[in-house]
């Protein structure tokens, strides 16, 4: 693996990937690369493939470009590597073939996710959940680490979480024991996305997830909302369906190596 020190080192190589028939799950943009290069970004060039590895401490997140007829290889690493292949139904076969190629190298599928979308519509007015503040960083970070996998849970980096809290893009519920629920989200031009939603185990069944969702919808003014939930997680699927979320055709497979 070759470490990338600045965007100029990778710019021409990335541009060369924009060819007919290329399959990719790499949707980083200019400002994303700056951040990832600071954190640690590595590349591995195989025969007809470019693999990018993003540093995440105890594991690496991989994105790729596969040209037709690529002969894949992996760099040596003893750390877990995680990659997510997401697509709409019309591209499912293409992505499945790509997944097969990675599994032939030793990756295995660890879970699938289904995306659901909620159209802008009315939502309840009252909620007990409140926006988290920057000083809640330690509590929120700990809560997310406790409730989501470090490898497959898409946890934010510390910098990302600090920025998220500063922007008011997390809502929480609290009780006498501390944070009892967290909904962490991202806002883009035309939609918002629930990144994490969890309620402490001893508080489940009391409607806190609904309170968090209401607070999130209030903060985002009920804008179009999307969420990726583990396929087959019946309670989560039921919760989102109850609140107006519907599968929109996008699914993903999360693969892990090591």
């Amino acid at each position: 693996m070759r470490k990338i020190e600045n965007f100029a080192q990778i710019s021409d190589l990335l541009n060369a990937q924009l060819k007919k028939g290329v399959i990719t799950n790499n949707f980083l943009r200019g400002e994303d690369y700056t951040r990832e290069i600071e954190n640690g970004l590595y590349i591995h060039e195989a025969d007809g493939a470019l693999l990018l590895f993003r540093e995440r401490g105890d594991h690496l997140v991989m994105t790729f470009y596969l040209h037709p007829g690529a002969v894949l290889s992996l760099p040596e690493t003893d750390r877990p590597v995680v990659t997510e292949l997401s697509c709409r139904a019309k591209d499912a076969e293409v992505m499945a073939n790509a997944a097969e190629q990675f599994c032939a190298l030793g990756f295995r599928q660890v879970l699938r996710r289904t995306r659901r979308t909620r159209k802008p519509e009315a939502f309840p007015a009252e909620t007990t959940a409140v926006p988290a503040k920057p000083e809640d960083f330690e509590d929120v970070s700990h809560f997310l680490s406790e409730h989501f996998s470090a490898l497959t849970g898409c946890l934010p980096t510390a910098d990302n979480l600090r920025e998220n809290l500063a922007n008011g893009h997390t809502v929480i519920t609290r009780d006498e024991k501390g944070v009892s629920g967290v909904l962490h989200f991202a806002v883009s031009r035309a939609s918002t996305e629930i990144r994490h939603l969890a309620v402490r185990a001893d508080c489940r069944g009391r409607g806190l997830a609904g309170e968090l969702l209401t607070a999130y919808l209030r903060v985002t003014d009920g804008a179009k909302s999307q969420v990726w939930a583990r396929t087959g997680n019946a309670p989560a699927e039921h919760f989102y369906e109850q609140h107006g979320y519907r599968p929109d055709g996008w699914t993903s497979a999360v693969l892990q190596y090591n």
Partner: protein
Amino acid sequence: MREKIIEILNEICPGNDFENETAIIDDGIIDSLDIVAVISELMEEFDVQLGVNDLTPENFNSVDAIVELIENAQD
């Protein structure tokens, strides 16, 4: 140029009214996977060089935006 762009978009993602659409990326009409195909077709058709930094919703949300992107790349 507009007609050719619409033709390319329809080939990759048929069944959409690209002529009047103003949120092609934002509304997910062209998805992340399609955009690589779109950009490679545009480069070939108009003999321009586009790069990863051009892959922004602003550049692909409408046919007018794509026209402007290509015209800028041709300058």
